[in-house]
């Protein structure tokens, strides 16, 4: 299980220019790597960082398959008949809708949803310093919330233990992708990606256009069968006569999709109009039913049109993770990642020692595992900077570290180019059913959202 004990970051361990400058010449000899190669979240990258998807693509192939197959059947079997009997615009409209749906879907799946890069070690240490103002030697974990005023309303900001920062308002940590996502709406398995600030408009246009497409195909298939049965035959005869009975299959797919897609579109239209996210709506963050105090949504513009314009037609924010940028030598020092880096604490906790070993053993293991640690973290054989960072630390450790155990866990974790923590996977395996749940708004409110320490957030 993931070790949730917070590790204090010692500012002394944060080396600066000297160590990395020495290795500049070594660095120059190596190929300059791009930032996506060392991205700590659970994402996969294609086309040299241009395309980003979640590690678990969910049922995206199924979604694509259903759309392509249904439309293919429509064009192959319904269009010829309807062009003959109705109008030539039917395949044209169908074609336009199909292209729009597929483009929106691909855009939603392959766009960075608004991932917040994790705090650098310096930043995280600074935050800790600000919180731990008492300056006592005994270590305590930082408080998990900070209250701020937004538009005269109190909003609580939560501390993210993985990203080592206070999450901005409306940001949530997606455990499936292991990233904090701005304006987090939900993680959609149908699309295989989180839906957040940057791709919400694509997602909305996808479901709206898909509603139109399914309704259109449904209508056309009904028209097809009706027209066939009008020439004196019964309905069943008409279906049997229609080419290979495929229209029936389309009818079934469309019938079941329409309920959920139309429902989802309606739900998201409501969210857009009130400037809410699925996450907030499910948690009831701004519900007026809570107590006596008025807790309205502080982000709303109090006008449906304004809310719609802001959400859907607002300026397109840039990607903050800079996937294709090159790593500078100074930046090759890894940023904080709770699941992958467990820096031994120096003001060790007296109460939670899980294993006791001599300091010598600790040092030996650190030196021994620093190479493989670097390998795990960055995916390629790594030389001294990380090692220097890491081995410098235990030299100052006066006592054994309670994280010794999880240090070994991370060191032994299977190394892949975008290595994930084996401990986090165990959290995912708890609720596989939720990930594949149908996107029906009727189930929405019944679904459980866990928002405690593991920061699991998902959607129906």
């Amino acid at each position, binding site marked *: 299980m993931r070790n949730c004990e917070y590790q204090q970051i010692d500012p002394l361990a944060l080396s600066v220019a000297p160590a990395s400058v020495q290795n500049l010449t070594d660095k120059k000899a190596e190929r300059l790597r791009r930032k996506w190669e060392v991205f700590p979240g659970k994402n996969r990258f294609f086309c040299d960082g241009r395309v980003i998807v979640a590690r678990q693509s969910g049922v995206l192939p199924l979604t694509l398959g259903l759309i392509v197959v249904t439309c293919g059947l429509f064009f192959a079997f319904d269009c010829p008949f309807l062009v003959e009997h109705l109008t030539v615009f039917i395949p044209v409209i169908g074609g336009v809708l199909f292209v729009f749906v597929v483009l929106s879907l691909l855009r939603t799946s392959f766009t960075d949803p608004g991932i917040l890069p994790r705090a650098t070690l*310096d930043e995280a240490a*600074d935050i800790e310093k600000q919180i731990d103002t008492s300056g006592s030697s005994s270590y305590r974990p930082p408080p998990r919330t900070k209250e701020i005023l937004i538009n005269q309303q109190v909003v609580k900001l939560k501390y993210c233990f993985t990203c080592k920062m206070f999450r*901005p308002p409306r940001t949530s940590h997606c455990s499936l992708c292991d990233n904090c996502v701005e304006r987090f709406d939900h993680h959609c398995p149908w699309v295989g990606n989180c839906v957040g600030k940057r791709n919400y408009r694509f997602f909305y246009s996808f479901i709206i256009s898909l509603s139109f497409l399914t309704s259109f195909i449904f209508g056309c298939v009904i028209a097809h069968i009706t027209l066939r049965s009008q020439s004196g035959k019964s309905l069943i005869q008409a279906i049997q006569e229609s080419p290979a009975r495929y229209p029936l299959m389309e009818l079934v797919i469309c019938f079941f999709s329409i309920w959920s897609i139309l429902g989802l579109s309606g739900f998201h239209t409501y969210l857009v109009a009130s400037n809410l996210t699925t996450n907030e709506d499910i948690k009831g963050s701004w519900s007026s039913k809570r107590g006596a105090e008025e807790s309205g949504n502080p982000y709303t513009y109090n006008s449906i049109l304004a809310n719609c314009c802001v959400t859907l*037609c607002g*300026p397109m924010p*840039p990607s903050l993770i*800079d*996937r*294709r940028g*090159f790593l500078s030598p100074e930046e090759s020092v890894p940023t904080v990642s709770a699941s992958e880096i467990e820096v031994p604490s120096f003001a060790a906790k007296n109460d939670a020692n899980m294993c006791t070993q001599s300091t010598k053993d600790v040092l030996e293991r650190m030196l021994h595992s620093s190479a493989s640690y670097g390998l795990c973290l960055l995916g390629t054989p790594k030389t001294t900077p990380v090692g220097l960072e890491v081995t410098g630390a235990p030299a100052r450790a006066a006592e054994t570290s309670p994280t010794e155990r999880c240090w070994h866990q991370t060191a032994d974790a299977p190394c892949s180019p975008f290595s994930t923590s084996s401990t986090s996977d165990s959290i995912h395996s708890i609720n596989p059913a939720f990930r594949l749940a149908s996107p029906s708004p009727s189930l929405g409110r019944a679904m459980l959202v866990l928002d405690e320490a593991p920061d699991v957030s998902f959607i129906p």
Partner: protein
Amino acid sequence: MATTDLNCSEFHNDQIATLSTHSLQELQHPVVSTKVFIQRDYSSGTLCKFQNKFPAELESRLDRQHFEETIQTLNNLYAEAEKLGGKSYLEGCLACLTAYTIFLCMETQYEKVLRKVARYIKEQNEKVYIPRSLLLTDPIERGLRVIEITVFEDRGFVPTS
């Protein structure tokens, strides 16, 4: 999608190159004394805005006025990027009609402003911060979370020009 990300990377790389050049050439012995982080100000919502509070660590190095001017200008630039007006709506509607393929060829309003921010920061570094053994880091390098001001040890160097 590709173009927008390329643009982002370009000015990120420019920034890195500029900073490396500055920090290595103009600061003869760059030893970092401390780093000061200016956090975001969320009082008006999720808009990108930084706190104008003058940090105590910079008391001896920098005038309050210079600092406030820098922060205010940055806040104004980001406000311009996120401004909701006819232009941004037009951009949004056009993008929607073309199924968002237009972002592949066109630079967004936000990205244009980010370039302005990068230029402004470079200029401020040259004029104000580096002569005082300080270095301003573009917030985009830190995910628009903080403005990082690196405080170098003041060894009374002479900036090479």
